[in-house]
């Protein structure tokens, strides 16, 4: 766990750029040959995946991938910097509606959908900057922070739910009240002749896969950098961190903006995926979900969050498909079991189990 | 020194630790009824762990613990406490969000059936606890909290007091007061004391015997005459 990152062997012939070494570090689980071997194998499998499954499975997996960004963002905000935001859905919603408003007004030509994606994420970052400023510069922390963010998302929910009337429109985009906003185009790649519309399918799957990988690696670098060290320090003891000369408010704010931008990315992608966004995305039930994904996976680690989120999404969906009436009960039981028996979260817990097993088997620990 | 028969606390072959690591290894010693026994040793040798194990806050893996002949092994912390052990932990651990009076009130729990609680004695020893009885303990200074922690353990007249570095962070004259008061308690009520301390002065004034710990073991026992000899103590500590 705690190997300092400088102890990595460095090839003497050419120096690996410093930032690459940050892919490994004390703040992330998993390093060394086995881990990266597994990583590349997983990426390969993911790349070949659509060839072996039907269209629905590919599209459905793409849908799962949409949510990963929000989870990773929350892991950064909560797991790494220790601020439990209960309202990431607010930024999800802002970006979702943002994508809708831009595309409904400006159409999908000329790569406009990607412009919209960009602007939507920007909007959620700006919102996060404002809210984050109030929170962190107002010294709000702990559950108070949770309630402020939750209140924010519930206010947005309540407001958006009553915008059914036609006066509630931004340009050509009707907000649509509780029924939500529809009619926006999916992500569209401009192509001579015929634009490629990325409906939920193989194209969208690959796009999202690449985005998830890039985002995951970038976050790994971020949390192992000096910035990441400070975030973790703030989580552990904000008072001491400040007394070491760090402006903790600024660090937390930046983490919050990045994490919320990622929630926004999820929101915009979700909207593009289903051509639909509604206030219920910002309601209480929706707000609890990201926390569950991240906590179940293991919030203090990006890899754990990533895998955990996908696992929870898939398991819950399958329970709903096959568990009929009992699905929700089974979900509840699963959650309780994970919390009780794998307190670090699913993935770190499993890693621990494997480690223990190895120890018992008398082999050295491979970390 | 003491035999099985007249020892209040007897510990044999005690092994304990955290997770997979053992901190205490095969520790054995006795404290006689009415004795004041000190434990000294460098940082990290396991003194606090020993105290916690006696209280049951750290579970022991091997060995036996007896209080007045009764096996403490199967007892929970609170049950041990109710057998008459008063514990003053390192770092004070008063209930920060409760008032001074409420803190003392919790101490009543240790009362033996039929006995009376004695606030007056506590107040007599530590007058500030009466003066500030409605202040939240969390806003006390470090030394004030230490006094409160001792007061809390005294309320119900324990048979055995476990003190983990009680002088830490206390102004010199109050350290002396504390030493005096504990001695007084010992003389008047026969309270037995097991004391972990770094303050040699205090040990020299109070203790009748002294164990030296190193690396989780009791490595030697100082004779009463050594206890009066500062340099002998230093040598023992520098093992």
């Amino acid at each position: 766990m705690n190997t300092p990152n400088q102890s990595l062997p460095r090839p003497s012939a050419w120096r690996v750029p410093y930032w690459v070494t940050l892919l490994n570090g004390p703040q992330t689980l998993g390093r060394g040959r086995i881990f990266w071997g597994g990583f590349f194998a997983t990426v390969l499998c993911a790349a070949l995946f659509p060839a072996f499954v039907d269209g629905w499975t590919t599209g459905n997996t793409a849908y799962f991938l949409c949510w990963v960004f929000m989870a990773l963002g929350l892991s950064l905000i909560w797991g790494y910097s220790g601020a439990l935001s209960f309202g990431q859905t607010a930024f999800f919603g802002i970006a979702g509606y943002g994508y809708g408003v831009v595309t409904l007004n400006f159409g999908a030509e000329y790569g406009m959908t990607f412009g919209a994606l960009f602007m939507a994420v920007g909007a959620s970052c700006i919102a996060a900057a404002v809210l984050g400023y109030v929170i962190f510069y107002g010294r709000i922390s702990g559950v108070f922070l949770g309630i402020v963010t939750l209140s924010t998302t519930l206010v947005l929910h309540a407001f958006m739910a009553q915008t059914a009337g036609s006066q509630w429109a931004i340009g050509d985009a009707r907000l649509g009240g509780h029924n939500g906003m529809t009619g926006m185009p999916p992500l569209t790649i401009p192509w001579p002749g015929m634009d490629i519309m990325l409906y939920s399918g193989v194209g969208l799957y690959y796009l999202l896969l690449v985005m998830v990988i890039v985002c995951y690696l970038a976050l790994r670098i971020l949390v192992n950098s000096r910035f990441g060290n400070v975030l973790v320090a703030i989580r552990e003891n904000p008072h001491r961190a400040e007394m070491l000369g760090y402006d903790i408010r600024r660090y937390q704010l930046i983490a919050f903006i990045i994490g919320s931008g990622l929630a926004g990315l999820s929101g915009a992608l979700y909207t593009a995926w289903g051509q639909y966004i509604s206030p219920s995305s910002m309601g209480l039930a929706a707000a609890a979900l990201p926390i569950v994904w991240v906590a179940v996976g293991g919030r203090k680690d990006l890899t754990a969050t990533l895998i955990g989120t996908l696992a929870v999404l898939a398991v819950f969906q399958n329970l709903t498909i096959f568990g009929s009436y009992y699905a929700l009960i089974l979900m509840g039981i699963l959650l309780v079991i994970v919390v009780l028996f794998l307190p670090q979260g699913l993935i770190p817990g499993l890693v621990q189990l494997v480690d223990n097993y190895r120890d018992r088997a008398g082999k050295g620990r491979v970390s | 020194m003491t035999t099985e028969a007249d020892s209040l606390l007897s510990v044999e072959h005690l092994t304990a630790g955290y997770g997979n690591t053992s901190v205490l290894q095969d520790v054995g010693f006795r404290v006689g009824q009415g004795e004041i026994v000190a434990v000294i040793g460098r940082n990290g040798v396991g003194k606090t762990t020993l105290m916690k194990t006696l209280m049951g806050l750290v579970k022991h893996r091997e060995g036996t613990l007896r209080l007045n002949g009764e096996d403490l092994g199967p007892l929970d912390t609170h049950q041990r406490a109710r057998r008459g052990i008063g514990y003053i932990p390192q770092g004070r651990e008063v209930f920060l969000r409760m008032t001074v009076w409420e803190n003392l009130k919790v101490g009543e729990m240790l009362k033996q059936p039929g006995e009376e609680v004695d606030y007056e004695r506590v107040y007599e020893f530590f007058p500030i606890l009466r003066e500030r009885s409605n202040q939240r303990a969390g806003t006390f200074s470090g030394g004030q909290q230490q006094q409160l922690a001792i007061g809390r353990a005294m309320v119900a007249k324990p048979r055995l007091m476990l003190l983990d570095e009680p002088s830490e962070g206390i102004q010199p004259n109050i350290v002396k007061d504390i030493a005096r008061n504990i001695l007084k308690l010992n003389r008047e009520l026969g309270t037995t004391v097991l004391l972990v301390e770094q303050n040699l002065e205090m040990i020299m004034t109070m203790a009748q015997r002294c164990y030296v710990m190193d690396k989780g073991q009791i490595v030697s026992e100082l004779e009463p005459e050594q206890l009066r000899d500062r340099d002998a103590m230093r040598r023992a500590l520098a093992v």
Partner: protein
Amino acid sequence: ADDPIRIGVLEDQSGDFAAVTQVKVYAIEMAAAEINENGGIAGREIELVTYDTQSDDRRYQEFMRRVLQRDQVDTVFAGFASSSREAYRPIVNQFDGLAFYNNQYEGGVCDANMIVTGAVPEQQFSTLIPWMMEEYGPNVYTLAADYNFGQISAEWVRMIVEEEGGQMVGEDFIPLGVSQFSQNIRNIQSEDADFVVTLLVGSAQASYYEQAASAGLGLPMASSVNVGQGYEHKRFSPPSLKDMYVTTNFIEEVDTPEANEFVENFYEMFPDAPYVNQEAANSYIALHLYKQMVERADGSTDKEDLRAIIAEGDVCFDGPSGTVCLDPRSQHMSHNIFLAKVDEEHAISFPQTWDNIEPYWLGEVGCDLTENDPSAQYTPSDNPSR
């Protein structure tokens, strides 16, 4: 034999709406069983592919995709809440599927991929409001859920009240999930209303009735949504719903031979069902209409073939609520509307019925699916005629 005809069923069997929608699934199962017993649809058996959408719009998105793409169903019966319908509609459009929305709602869906069998405002309010004003007086107070359904319904009420020469003495909108109504009860008392139109949605808002009764409000009430859907008169103890008037196209108390037979069969098959509400009937009717359309299209389940049949304008069915027909322009259904009155003991009587009320509004404002397909939802203030 031939492959079965596969029908996707996406309804909320758990979560907030379960109390109302569980019976929709029952009704579809019952219709399927009946049809299968009589040789299926064009000789093919019906196979239901059912998922519990848990009152969660996202589950609709996931499972609508699943039934259309993986399960390859021929048609889907889906949705209670309008937001759920809007969540799945883009997906139905994308796969060019055919979905039945068997639910009373705020109206306005003009989409060739959708067939709506539930009642819409013009059917429920153009009947209810004038009757109430006649009976109780011209001063109307509306209490409506603060979202699409409530707002649009309230707009209809307002329009009709004005047309009929009455006046709105007040309108309160209540966010979904609110369960405390003291202030609204006071507002109503201070405005001297002759009756209150309650367009309250969801189990939380249903708490209004008990609270109004215990505060001694005692005004007659009119609604398009309560009783017919959420059987509040069964769930609350009398007399909290006293003098409630509801226009519904079916409830289990409707006393016609067809209705009685339907209800009897229903309870025979599902003895534990809490109530047979209007959406159960609509779901039942929908499957029979589908059977008829497919059979008339010579066994084709192709959407366009079926729409060609609808365009003939005589897709009708004699069901539990009498004869109903599909309107080719809006693909909505005509209804016989029953005015149900709840009395002091919470028994139901029917002071009035209206036969064959057409879903005329969409056509009037310019929705004509036989001509073009805007795949949109119109509202009174936002439609092509404006």
